[in-house]
């Protein structure tokens, strides 16, 4: 069972109280971008076995968005952080490195 703690309201709930919002930290390429960039933004997603960064919404609770870093195989949640950032906090990346040495995800490692 995937158990998340919402950083906005502090409630801990299991997966069904939340709604997955897809991959985190996507950079938007809109009108005027190249076809390759636009295609990447629209369709290309990470599908890792291991460390993954996602957006979640506390749909049945406070209704707010947040980011979560978790392991796709063990469902271990490494950390939860604010929705209003464009990259995971350094301290969280360090904690993941302790648990999963050599991990990398897109530009982060």
């Amino acid at each position, binding site marked *: 069972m995937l158990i998340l703690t919402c950083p*906005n*309201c*502090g*409630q801990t*709930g*299991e997966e*069904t*109280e939340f709604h997955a919002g897809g991959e985190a930290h996507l950079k938007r390429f809109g009108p005027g971008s190249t076809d390759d960039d636009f295609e990447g933004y629209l369709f290309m997603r990470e599908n890792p076995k291991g460390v993954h960064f996602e957006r979640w919404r506390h749909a*049945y*609770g*406070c*209704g*707010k968005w947040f980011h979560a870093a978790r392991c796709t195989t063990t469902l271990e949640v490494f950390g939860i952080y604010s929705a209003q950032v464009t990259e995971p906090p350094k301290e969280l990346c360090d904690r993941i490195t302790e648990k999963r040495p050599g991990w990398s995800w897109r530009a982060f490692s």
Partner: protein
Amino acid sequence: MSSATSALNGATWSDGIATVTEAPLQGMITLRGAFSDAKVKKAATSVAGVDMPGQGQANCVETRGICWMSPDELLVLCPYDTVGTNIEKMQAVLGDQHSLCVDVSDARGVFDLSGPRAREVLAKLVPVDLAPDQFTFGMFRRTRMAQVPAAFWLHEDDTFRIICFRSQAQYVFDLLITAAQPGSDVNFF
């Protein structure tokens, strides 16, 4: 003028291990704004007559109270017939502060689930740790109840007050009485 009635007209059921009662019409005002602003706090506390609750908490006395809904949303409870004047009072306190208060009394259904087994009945329906030492008096929780959103708090010892959307009131009532069927004790808590 037509008279306002609650969603299920005060339906009640007590043939099982807990009693389910639809509460009479409850005045509810949604207040959104920055809690850091003194006016927002004052708007809520002056109308409800209780202290501002902390995160994830509710302060409720009879039909008055304040529930902490999210980092920028409060649910202010007051007697049903005072909602109109209370909203005017709140708007006067808020002035031009960026905020919103709106009457949601008729958009909700309210239930009381009571009895020594109430905790157990509710625990069958919500993904929340309801152990007596985990969910205590004063806590307020918004969550999923089977297939619909709901919020609840311990209104009195052994009595949970549950809020749901009015359109889902019949579903929630049926759900509660199903979970409280005679002989369905789990004896976990």
